[in-house]
Structure formats: C-alpha cells, structure tokens
C-alpha cells in the first residue's frame, strides 16, 4: 500500500514540466520485504502465527513456542516436522519462495495454511532471524542467520530433526512499529490467542507456549475435537457446550460446538470459526450465528461457538488478505444456511434441558455439573473430524434423550425466513426430512416434558417458583417464563395470520440502486411470504402495494433496504422478523404474569406445564434466563458433604 501511494505521488511529479530526474525506481528487496512485513507481521503474535502455520504444514506432531518479553525479545518456534534440506533452507527465506503451491491451479485449491511465500522473508526483514532445520534421516542440519533482511551467515549445523526458528528483537529496525506494541502481557495474550486458534482444529498436534521460561499453555495430543475444545475453552465454560448436529448445504459442511444461551460473552471472543481448518472472521458466518441465537440471548451479548466448516477448496478463496483471516465463499448463502441450520437445530433441541424420565435426568442432568467430566458434549453426532465409529462405541442413551426435542426439518427452515416459526407445535409433521433425523430416535421421546415433571415446592417472594427434579433444585422466574410462553404463542398466531395485509392507497415507489434492485427482483417471493406486496415498477424502481398489517405505520423503505443488504451479505434476512419479534415481545411482556404476582400452586403448575409446550424454554424473549438449576451434587459440595 505504501508503495502504491509513493509511486502515484512520484508519478505526478514526474509529469511536471522541466523535471528530468528519474524518480521512480524499483524498491530494494529488503525494503519490499519490510513493506510486506507491515501487512503480515503486525505484532509478535502474527509472527508466531506464521511460524506455527509453517510447522503445521510441515506435518509436525509437536510444536513448541517459546517467547520472551511478550515475544518482542525472542520468539522461538520448534517443531518435529519434515524439516528442510540445505538448498531448501537457503531459498525458503527468499520472497515468494514456497513449497505449498507451484502453479495457478494450486492457488485456487489451497489445502495448506500458508501459501504466499511471504512469512519467512517478512519476519526476517524486521528481526534478527535464525533458522535451524534438518530433515528426518539426514545427518547434518542447516543454519541460516539473517539480520534485518541481510543474510549474515549460513552453514551446516547439528540439530534434531525438524525446524527451529528463532526471531530475536522483532521490529528492532522498524522503530515506528515498535512504538505501537502494547504491554508485554497484552502481547502474550495475543500470542496465546493465535496459538489457540491454530490448535483448535488440530487435536492431533501437541502445542505448548512458554513465556519467560514459564509454561503458559500446554495442549497435549488428544482424541477428537472435544477434548481440545475442553482444554482451550476451560472446564467451566465447556460444561455449557454441546455438539452441534452436522449440517450440509450445497457443499458446505458444518460441525462443531455451541453454547447454551445461559453462557454468553460481552465480545465475539468466544466465537471460533474455521474454514477448512483455517481460523477466519467472516461476516457471513457471524451473521448466521447471530440469527440462530436471535431471541435467545440479549442484544449485545455473544455466544461461545466453535464451528468447523468444510468447503471444497475450489469453492472458497482464502487469498483475500495477507493475514488470511478473511475468506470469500463462492456460495455465501450456502455457508450461511449451513451454519444457521446446524446451530438452530442444536438450539431447538434444548439439549441443556434434562428430560422427564428418570434415566435421562440421572445421566444427562447430573453430568453437566460433575467436575471434569466432559459429559455435556455428547457423541451423538458424528464427530467433526469424522469419527463415525464413535456412535457405536459409546451408545449413550442420554445423548439421544437430551436431544429429544422434535427436530426442525429442513423444509421448514428453508421455506420460512427464520427458524423462529419452526415451533414445536408444527414439529412432528415437518420432521419427515432433514439432517437431524438420523440422530433423533423418536421412540426414545419421553411422554411428559421436563417442566411438567418437576415437583413444585412453592413460590418465594412472589417472584420465583421453587421446584425439584430427581437430581436437583430448579428455580423458575415466573415473569420470564410466562413471557416466553406468551411470546411463542403470539408468534404462532402471527405466523398463521401473516397474510393480514394493509394495502396502500397510494403505492410507495421505492428507488433502489441497481444492485439492491437485482436482489429485490430475485427475492420478491421472500417478501411476499412476509406480507409485503411489491411489484417491479421500471428498471430499478418498485411499487410497494401492501405491507404486513402488524407493521403498518412503520418505515417500510428503511426496513426493506436493510433487509436487502442482509440478503446481499448472507442470502437471508431476519429484519422483518426482528421488527415483528420486537412488537411481539413487547406485547408478551405486558400480557404476562408480573414479578410480584402471587400464584396459587395450581397456577404455578399450569405455568410449568405450558413451559414444556414451547421451544427454547431457557430464556425469555428479552434474553434473560427463565430458570436455573442446581444439582444435588453441587448442593452437597456447598454443604461440604463431598
């Protein structure tokens, strides 16, 4: 970028009369590397990321990262990968040198993490750099030393098989960059984050990070994704994680883990998404996650989600940005739908609700709180890495029970603009097809719902209903619970009556740019299903002839524009539903039992029974939790009985 603007500036001056000097010249390779380093090596964590990626691509099974002073004094990445011969080692530190691609076709079918051939020379140009490498089975290794991009020495060197790269005094020759570094602890945090992102999709590789001689991260090789997720997310949070049912849409395969709505974070830090094993931050995927959790968690809160997307390498372009955290999908809508479906199916099953029969409560409910037991994440779906045999190895019955919510069929999800309307009431009929059915063993469905099976103990402070289940204590917020029930009922009614339309006396002419107009033309049916009657009216103009009666008086043009932008980004939009949900949830709030109302035992039981009739029983429409549960085990701990 710097080079572009320099060249442009020089070009202008060059054309001015009387100037004969040659002002434009080719940058020296060292300077070019430093410029590239500006993009690739932003901070120590980015150098670590590049080096660890190389190690992974080299087939390492154990990767050690040592850093000193947040990585600014020293970074050393040691792996036991394939290593390099002397000739390779010498050329590897040159720009655009890579073993990972060799022709243009390869660029569009990238299976490795790195490919640009920029990492080593970029890092070497802004540090004192030492590369020691030896291929397995060779006698001697090679050592190459570079300082600020200038080769200082190279020669034979005795070493263990694999590669060890030491980066000392990062940014020593680019003081401007050095000034931007944060405190040491911030840099360490970034390094850890970078390594965790690389480690999540690779449970078959061991990672460790040592800072100033102290081990700060240790991830041994483990069996399957869950164990790795468990050790990275932490024991407390992973108790709230569940395996998402696999979903596939037009060549995009999704698997992974999602948090129950009770676990949220203030930032999107808990969202890890991987495309073909590469960590990415993609607005399509994030949008799909947001849509799936809509109405379940507070606005401004974010779930913890770890998702692995598998896409044919030709269907995704990773060569978008030097940092490679952005990707471009050829079919963004497919990615959106696959992610949304995986999460919506998982969430609608409410796996965190123990089910009514005693077995389920015993197995499922209690494991959630049993320390150290990775129980909540069940193996009921094929493991993300593809361990189909697990299902037979561990036929855990509770797993099926936990997910016994009636599955949401594909047909319903795709026919309607959001999963919101896939209420349980319409479930059994719609369960004919869809990716979830194979894991939902219908004959294991318990007869009574969880909340109906609770033993009601009483109401406290006219606010909470105290109940017990076979394995614990359950406290229900009466207002939140009733609000959820009312909300779901209103939503069903709205879904049935969405055809109530208020036509316009004077049709509103909507002007759109050609891009939005094209999207609108393609999606007239989508809007018609929501109750908007829109007709083409010239090239890029449309006549709005009727609106959903519930929204009449609103700002239709703004809402439609937002919805079109969503459609362009993700192939779907929940704007209209969000607007409807906002109205419904206000209505639900007013029409519900208040906090402070005294309930008779029969009223309380009726409320609990109704709670079983709605999906997503765990949060009120504003996102607040409806109930919490304390297991007997936890109570015993509190009374020091354990």
């Amino acid at each position, binding site marked *: 970028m710097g080079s572009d603007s320099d060249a442009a500036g020089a070009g202008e001056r060059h054309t001015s009369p009387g100037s004969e000097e040659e002002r434009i010249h080719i940058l020296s390779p060292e300077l070019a590397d430093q410029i590239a380093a500006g993009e690739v090596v932003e901070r120590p964590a980015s150098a670590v990321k590049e080096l660890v990626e190389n190690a992974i691509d080299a087939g390492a099974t154990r990767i050690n990262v040592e850093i000193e002073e947040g990585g600014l004094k020293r970074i050393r990445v040691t792996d036991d990968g394939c290593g390099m011969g002397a000739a390779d080692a010498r050329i590897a530190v040159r720009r655009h040198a890579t073993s990972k691609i060799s022709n243009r076709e390869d660029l569009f079918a990238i299976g490795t993490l790195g490919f640009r051939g920029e990492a080593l020379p970029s890092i070497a140009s802004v540090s004192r750099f030492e590369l020691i490498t030896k291929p397995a089975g060779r006698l001697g290794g090679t050592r190459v030393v570079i300082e600020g991009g200038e080769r200082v020495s190279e020669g034979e060197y005795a070493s263990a098989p694999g590669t060890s790269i030491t980066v000392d005094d990062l940014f020593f020759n680019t003081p401007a960059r050095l000034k931007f570094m944060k405190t040491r602890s911030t840099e360490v945090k970034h390094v850890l984050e970078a390594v965790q992102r690389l480690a999540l999709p690779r449970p078959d590789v061991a990672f460790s990070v040592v800072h100033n001689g102290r081990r700060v991260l240790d991830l041994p090789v483990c069996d399957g994704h869950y164990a790795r997720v468990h050790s990275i997310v932490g024991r407390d949070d992973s108790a709230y994680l569940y395996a998402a049912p696999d979903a596939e849409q037009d060549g995009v395969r999704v698997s992974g883990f999602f948090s129950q709505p009770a676990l949220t974070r203030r930032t999107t830090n808990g969202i890890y998404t991987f495309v073909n094993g590469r960590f990415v931050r993609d607005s399509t995927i994030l949008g799909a996650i947001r849509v799936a959790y809509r109405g379940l968690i507070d606005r401004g809160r974010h779930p913890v989600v770890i998702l692995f997307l598998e896409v044919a390498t030709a269907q995704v372009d990773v060569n978008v940005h030097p940092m490679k955290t952005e990707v471009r999908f050829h079919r963004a809508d497919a990615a959106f739908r696959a992610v949304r479906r995986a999460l919506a199916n998982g969430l609608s099953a409410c796996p965190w609700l123990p089910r009514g029969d005693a077995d389920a409560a015993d197995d499922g409910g209690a494991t959630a709180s049993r320390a150290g037991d990775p129980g909540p994440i069940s193996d009921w779906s094929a493991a993300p890495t593809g361990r189909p045999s697990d299902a037979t190895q561990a036929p855990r019955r509770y797993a099926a029970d936990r997910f016994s919510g009636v599955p949401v069929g594909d047909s319903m999800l795709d026919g309607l603009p959001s999963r919101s309307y896939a209420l349980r009431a319409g479930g059994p009929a719609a369960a004919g097809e869809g990716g979830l059915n194979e894991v939902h063993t219908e004959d294991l469905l318990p007869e009574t719902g969880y909340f109906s099976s609770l033993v009601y103990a009483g109401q406290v402070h006219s606010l909470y209903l105290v109940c017990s289940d076979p394995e614990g204590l359950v406290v229900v917020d009466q207002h939140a619970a009733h609000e959820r029930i009312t909300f779901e*009922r209103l939503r069903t*009614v709205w879904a*049935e*009556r969405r*055809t*109530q*339309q*208020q*036509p*316009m*006396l*004077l*049709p*509103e002419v909507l002007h759109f740019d050609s891009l939005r107009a094209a999207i609108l033309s393609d999606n007239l049916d989508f809007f018609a299903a929501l109750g908007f009657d829109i007709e083409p009216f010239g090239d890029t103009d449309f006549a709005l002839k*009727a609106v959903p*009666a*519930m929204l*009449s*008086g*609103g*700002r*239709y*043009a*703004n809402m439609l524009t937002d919805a079109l932008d969503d459609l362009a980004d993700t192939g779907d939009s929940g704007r209209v539903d969000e607007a409807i949900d906002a*109205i419904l949830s206000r*209505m639900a709030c007013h029409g519900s039992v208040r906090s402070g109302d005294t309930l008779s035992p029969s009223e309380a039981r009726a409320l609990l029974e109704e709670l079983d009739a709605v999906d997503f029983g765990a949060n009120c429409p504003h996102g607040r939790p409806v109930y919490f549960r304390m297991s007997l085990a936890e109570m015993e701990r509190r009374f020091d009985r354990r």
Partner: protein
Amino acid sequence: MKITLDTSTLSRELFKLQGVVNSKGTMPILQNALIEASDSGELTLHATDLDVSVTTTSECEVSQPGRITVRARDLYDVVKNLKGERVTLEKEDNQWMRLTSDTVRVRFVGMNPDEFPQVQRADEVQFVPLPTDRFMRMIDRTIFSISTDEGRPNLTGALFKKAGADRISMVSTDGHRLSMISAPVDAEGKQLPSELEDGVIIPRKGLAELRRTVDLTAPEISFGLRGNNVVVRHENTTMFVRVIDGNFPNFDQVIPESKKERMAYVDRATLIDRIKFVSLFSNTKTHNVRIELEEATCTISAQDPDKGECEEKVQAAYDSETVQAGYNYRYVLDVLNVIGGEQVALELVDTLSPTLIHELDSEEGERSLFIVMPMRI
C-alpha cells in the same frame, strides 16, 4: 431595556411560544425567546425552531427600549406562577435579565440577542382572510392522516392548494388513507397567491402549533406566502411555517368515482360507539374489524384467535347489493371522530378497492371526503 406590563398578558403571549422552543437541540439559542421593546410602547416576543417561527406583539409600558433573550420555558414557568398583577423586566449587565413583580425578584441568565436567528418580517405579505373556525375545521379533518414516516417527507405535511375559483383545499395522506377538505375563500377581489395553484405542503408541526395557539374567539385569521413559508396571522400573532420541499403525490387518480346509490347512511355516534365495542375482539396490533353492508343493515364484526369473535348490527339506510371489507378500525374511527353531522355516508365497493366516507351536513360550502384502504384479512 426596561418594561412593565400586565402579568396575564405576558403569560398569555409566552404560552404561544412554548410549542416552538426547542428543549433539546444543538443550538441553545433556540430555547430562548427574543424580547424586544420599542419606543412606541410595543413588546414583541419571538421564538423559532427554524421550521416554525412565532411572533407576538402586545402593548406595554416601555421605560427604556431594547432587546434581550432568555430561556422561554423558564420565563413562562415563572410568569404563569406570579401572584402580582404587574411585572417588570429589566436588562442588566452581561445579558442578565431582572424580573420583579410584587414581592418576587428573579434574575435570568440571558444570551446575546445578536445570536438570535433573524426574525422574518411579514410586511410585504399579501394576506387573504379566512374564518378562524373554517381554518380549524380544515386542520382537524386532515392532520390525523398526515404520515409520520420521515422516509416519505412529502407526506409528512398537508397539501394546501387552490381548488377552483375562490376555493381552497387541504389534503393529507399516509399512504393507507387520505383526507381532503375544500372550502370557499373570500379573497376580497385579491388573487390567491400563485404558489397555491400547485399547492404547498405545510408540515404537521406547523398545523399542530396553529391549532394549539389560534385564539378561537377571534373571528378571522389571514394567510399568505413569503418565500418558502406559509404565513398565518391572527390577532397579534404571526406564525411562519416553512413548507416541505417536495411534490405531493397525484392523488386524484386513486379517488374512486362516487355513486349515490352505493352510499349507506348510518348514525355517526352509534357507529363510533359500536365499532369501539366490537374492536374489543380485534387483534391488538392489526386492529382488524370487518364491516358488511346489506339491506338496511351495517354489520360490524371482529375476530381474534386468542379472544374469540364479536358481531354487532347497526341500522343503515342502504338498499344496494351486499358488500363487505376489513379495516384497521382506528382509520375509520379517526374519520368518524373529526367529522360533524348526525349521519355519515359509507361507500364500500369491495375488499380490494378504497372505501369512501362522506361527511354530511358540512358547514356552508365546505366539502370533505375521506378514503380508507381496506385491510386484507
């Protein structure tokens, strides 16, 4: 500046400014009233929110002419609570203003009057008179159906337009319904302003302020145009309202042809009462009711899956074919509530065509018509 005047006069005049002073906004000066006292014993008060400006004049005892500006809301709150009959306002150093009345002493922080936006003068405006009650009826019959959608600014005001020789009309629509009234105007031989040939769009705020402040006991108001402002003068008050830039939609084409034989005559008060009753069973968000006309009967019904259904029959003078349509009942009530006359005429065509509501027994020479688009239930 130093003036003395009746407390009640000052209070009454300050009241007229309250609607346009801006309580929050980026320009603090707009929260102020500009107070000017002239040699000739005249007190002028101004306030503006840049779209609507109000100027009032009244007599007072001027000891020393001058100008000052203080927060209009604070001044009004003080003056309306004074017990003394006379009040004195006096300018002090640094833009402070002292108010004394009987035993009360108040000092207000003022601002430099030079910062106050330029006050518009109505000197050259050609005014056309209109009876006050007629002007009020025109506002009442149109203001409720002005759109609140800022995305369609041209609908956020009422069209004020010449309607044939010596007639003036006011029209409003929010896209779903339309209200229009035309009334004779006696220009006393003078021409109506030429801008009214195409009409100007008066924003809702201006109409609401006019309705709020116009002295109904005064027999006449007069209106005119100056630049892009409508100027309305009544008694000692002049209001400038900036008109909305934009074209009002061509509504003539959506007004269905009216046919006498299709009209159903219903008692207005009964209809209002019964629609309110039946609406207990309409959806609280869509406000749906159904109206069916058959021989001698108008049937009002509503249903909601949560509540049930309700039906009521009202006597109607009607002998045409049976027709029915669904409505947002609020749209219907809005019309029935503002019109006069014992009876109202409903003209339904079918569920897809606009429904006409005619005001009967209008005041001398006035004609109003209301169009409501049925809802598809």
